[in-house]
């Protein structure tokens, strides 16, 4: 069975690329457009990996990350945070909140895919 990935990002222009690339790589891909929607999607069915943008409407990426890590049932889920800010304090905050990787925009899609692959291969 193929691994599932949830993309939580409000910018359709990045979602389109990520969705296309991940599908091509053989993952089951779902998309959420804000933090709240992401949480609901996880509650319905937790994905193996979450690609989480920091700047989300309604509920920020940090909040989503925190809620996931508070729930023991979701501990196995991998979280990769995406941000357009990339200041060091934010990186360390994201990692402290339980993100597995922190990627600053702009990024290489190849590296992102490699990171996703590595994280899912660990399991």
């Amino acid at each position, binding site marked *: 069975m193929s691994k599932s990935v949830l993309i939580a990002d409000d910018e359709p*222009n990045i979602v*389109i*690329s990520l969705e296309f*690339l991940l599908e*091509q790589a053989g993952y089951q891909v779902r998309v959420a457009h804000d933090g709240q929607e992401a949480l609901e999607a996880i509650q319905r069915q937790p994905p193996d990996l979450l690609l989480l943008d920091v700047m989300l409407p309604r509920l920020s990426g940090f909040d989503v990350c925190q809620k996931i890590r508070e729930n023991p049932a979701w501990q196995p889920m991998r979280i990769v945070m995406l941000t357009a800010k990339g200041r060091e304090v934010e990186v360390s905050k994201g990692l402290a909140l339980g993100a597995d990787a922190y990627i600053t925009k*702009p990024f290489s899609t190849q590296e992102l895919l490699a990171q996703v692959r590595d994280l899912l291969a660990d399991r």
Partner: protein
Amino acid sequence: MRPWSVFALQLAALCALLGGLLGLVGLPLWLDLAAAERELLQALLVGRGALLAVLGLLLLALLGALLRLWRSAYPAAAKRLEEEVGIIHRVNPQHRVAIGGAKPMRRLGHALNDFAVAYDAQRQDVEGRIAQTNARLEQEKNRLAALMSELAQSVLVCNVEGRILLYNPQASQLLEGREAGAVGLGRSLFGILDQRLIAHGLDKLRQGLEQGASPVAHFVTARATQLLRARMVPVLGQPGELLGFVLILEDVTHSVELASRREHLLRQLTEGSRAALANIRAAAETLQQYPEMDATHRQRFGEVIRDEAERLSLSLEQGLARHGDQPGGQWPLEEMLASDLLCALQRNFSTTLGLSVRCQDSGEPLWLSLDSYSLVQALTQVMDALAVACAIHEVDLELSTVGRFARLALCWAGEPLEPGLLHQWEERALSLGGADPAGCTLKDLLERHGGELWCQADRAGGRNRLFLQLPITLPHPVAPAPALQGRPVYYDFDLFSQPGQTPELDERPLRELAYTVFDTETTGLAPSEGDEIISIGAVRIVNARLLKQECFEQLVDPRRPIPRASQQVHGLSPQMLAGQPTIERVLPLFQRFAEDTVLVAHNAAFDMRFLQLKEAQTGIRFIQPVLDTLLLSALVHPGHAADEHRLEQIAARLGVSVIGRHTALGDAMVTGEVFLKLIPLLAERGIHTLKQAREASRKTLYAKLEY
């Protein structure tokens, strides 16, 4: 005891003495007489009672007159001498005693005057030497004052209670704003800056001292619209003992604003671009990785790239439009009116190049940020080349505004300029003299100013123009430096030892208090009949020093006619008072000036009456203690008659030179100096504290004077 009761007592004693003597002689005589002789004497006296009474009264009058003569010759003269010797000794060594009274008293007077001359000579010798030392000290103080006033920063020195001991003009300019007089010697810093900040700073300094470091405290505070950066440095006495602090203030409002705008721009250009770049890159990489992608997907990715690239351009434009008008950065640019630049160019073109130059100026004040010397020199060189290239003898200078830019045009008839030539000139190194870095080109100069240069030919009209466009800036108002008269008294280190000023002023020695000495000029002498204040003058005394620079002077529109007789006294005409503020606006300012001080005036009851009559109308009450130099003078010199306690007489007696009499400020200054001379004389009479001075004043005869 009053003089006349002393006189009556003495007269009664004299009569009693005479009666006693008469009895002493009469009694043995009477006892010796035979009965017949006694009858004869009785017969002689009976029926002559009236005559005897008259004779008795005559004798009494004679005795009275003699007593008066004796009194003025001896005790009164002695009392006067005593007072005048006191004046020589303590106040005015040039004073000489008046010669009067009986011959021995006159001889004593001469002897005292001779002694005074010798004493004065000796004193002058000592004072001369003291003056020499003081002059040296003063020179050093002057150097300090000059240094302080030349500093660009605002500097205040305060004691640990926050009283200002020293400040420079920059500090008063920075902190006063609308409120004149907020910064002054002995005034509290806490009225200006937040007390908690200063206390926190002091704590930090103390901590640092305990750890044996040389501590400095920093803080930033907002004051109205200003943002101030402060540096606090300790002033130390004994090792480790904190006497006070030096506060160095800097107005960082503008630089902080500029820095935050730069920061904002930078963040907008970096973080704002990250997301867009990520989107473009992801889309581009996807396209590249899957060349066999279907057409719909291919088009969608293409749209993403175009969309994001457009967003990126737009954000760049917006960022520059909002923040890109800050030319120069580190380069020193000064603010200048565009019309002034035009004038400078006109002058330079006609004197150095011999051109005929006309100026067209819209007259609208346009401010530019310029390195005016370099720009004028560079444009003159361009004009020189232009005149040669296009055979120009006449040129028009035109100034116009286009959006946020000022556009300056050099306009000429005849040959147009080849754009290629202009580009060559832009790249050519300028020769601007020593001030400019070598190899600076016109292009560099323009870039530094955020300016552009181009030429345009209007072939139909036969007019050619060379345009210079520069961004318009908003000027920052620079407050004019206050005009200072004489050497400023900006420091008073004696305040270091002054404890905080408390409401219990009464027990404090007179020498240590802060005073506001004031005087008013009025339309007449009857405040209850509608006379009004037309001028208030006041000066401060702190630590027994008259601070001539810290004065208050304000004319007041009385809103009533001014009688001619009073005009002759104070010389203020209705024209001079027209347009001055009214008393309702002046009293709050005066109250602020006199805050926390004891009021002093000559014949204070008169001035206070005027102020009290305005209480209901203005709601301003002067509740601080009041001292009256008239009463104090009467207190120290009771032997002088009432008319010898007028301000001029007292001033002359105490060796105070009188200038500017009958202007409110002039009189206040004289009163202040008189008051300072009275303090040691009061001490001589056991009057040391404010309470003692007020109680003694109340008891003097003049206190009954009513207005």
